[in-house]
């Protein structure tokens, strides 16, 4: 719901004509939004350029719009920001090199966690089923006889 409202606001603001920005060709505002959601607002704490109301984010959105309007692909626009800020500018770290760990660590943690849970469950359920003590043959015979004589 929140994302839908943000998207609607973003499209509304983006579609508003601005005298400072004259795109050379029409730009799909959804494409601007998609690129802006991938970029970190540089003056915010963990907010994307699409979500931040700051002036810096507004300027970055304008740059995204302008570069898309000039014919660059979304990947080229992202690369423009990465070349200036490094991978830090991307909210989702790239799936290569050291940052691949960020993607793999949760998967490894889940697998290890499930293995531990399975192990502990096996141990706990094993304890609840103690093996019955062996009954010697004489006792078995006595029980049988007493049951037979039961009226």
């Amino acid at each position, binding site marked *: 719901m929140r994302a839908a409202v943000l998207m609607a606001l973003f499209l509304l603001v983006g579609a508003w004509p601005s005298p*400072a920005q004259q795109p050379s060709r029409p730009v799909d505002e959804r494409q601007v939004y998609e690129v802006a959601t991938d970029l970190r607002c540089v003056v915010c704490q963990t907010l994307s350029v699409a979500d931040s109301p700051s*002036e810096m984010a507004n*300027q970055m959105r*304008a740059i995204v719009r302008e570069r898309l309007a000039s014919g660059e692909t979304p990947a080229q626009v992202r690369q423009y920001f990465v070349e*200036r800020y*490094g991978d830090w500018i991307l909210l989702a770290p790239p799936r290569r090199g050291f940052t691949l760990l960020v993607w793999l660590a949760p998967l490894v943690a889940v697998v*290890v966690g499930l293995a531990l849970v399975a192990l502990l469950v096996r141990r706990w359920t094993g304890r609840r089923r103690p093996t019955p003590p062996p009954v010697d043959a004489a006792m078995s015979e006595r029980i049988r006889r007493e049951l037979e004589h039961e009226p």
Partner: protein
Amino acid sequence: MRRSWRWLLPLTAVPVLALLAYGFRLNPRDIRSPLVGRPAAPFALTSFEGTPMQLGALRGQVVVLNFWASWCYPACYEEAPVLERGWRAYRDRGVVVLGVDIQDKDEAGRKFIREFNLTFPNAPDPSGKVSVDYGVYGVPETYFIDRAGAIRVKHVSAVTDQVFRDTVEALLAEPAPSR
């Protein structure tokens, strides 16, 4: 076997805690710029006085490019006199100080310049394009550009007299680039 399993759970927390400890020791503002060592992006701004301020025209000189804002207190207020002193001390030795006022109001920027009696060129960056071109993520940030036009040092936070002097002297000591 059972004893080793008992230690496994606390042991898995060790790398996580080590990573946390490493992360807490880092300065979140100390982000390495990929631009250091690369040619400085050319720009053309109009100064508060209405004169053109172009980086391309300054090739062959050491350029100290400072990004500031009037609302950036106290760091920008601390370094403004440092930059003015540096400009006055080194301008005859081939050093140019340029100020770029970002995310600011025009009148507030002019008032700041008057307050500190800044005589080096200062220009607003109303579109934010120059600050994004330089990978600026806060103020103040200062870029030291060598005589060949390459960014050599990015300084985050207020520039001190010593940082200014040491960096500029080191760049001036390098042989001038062949034209």
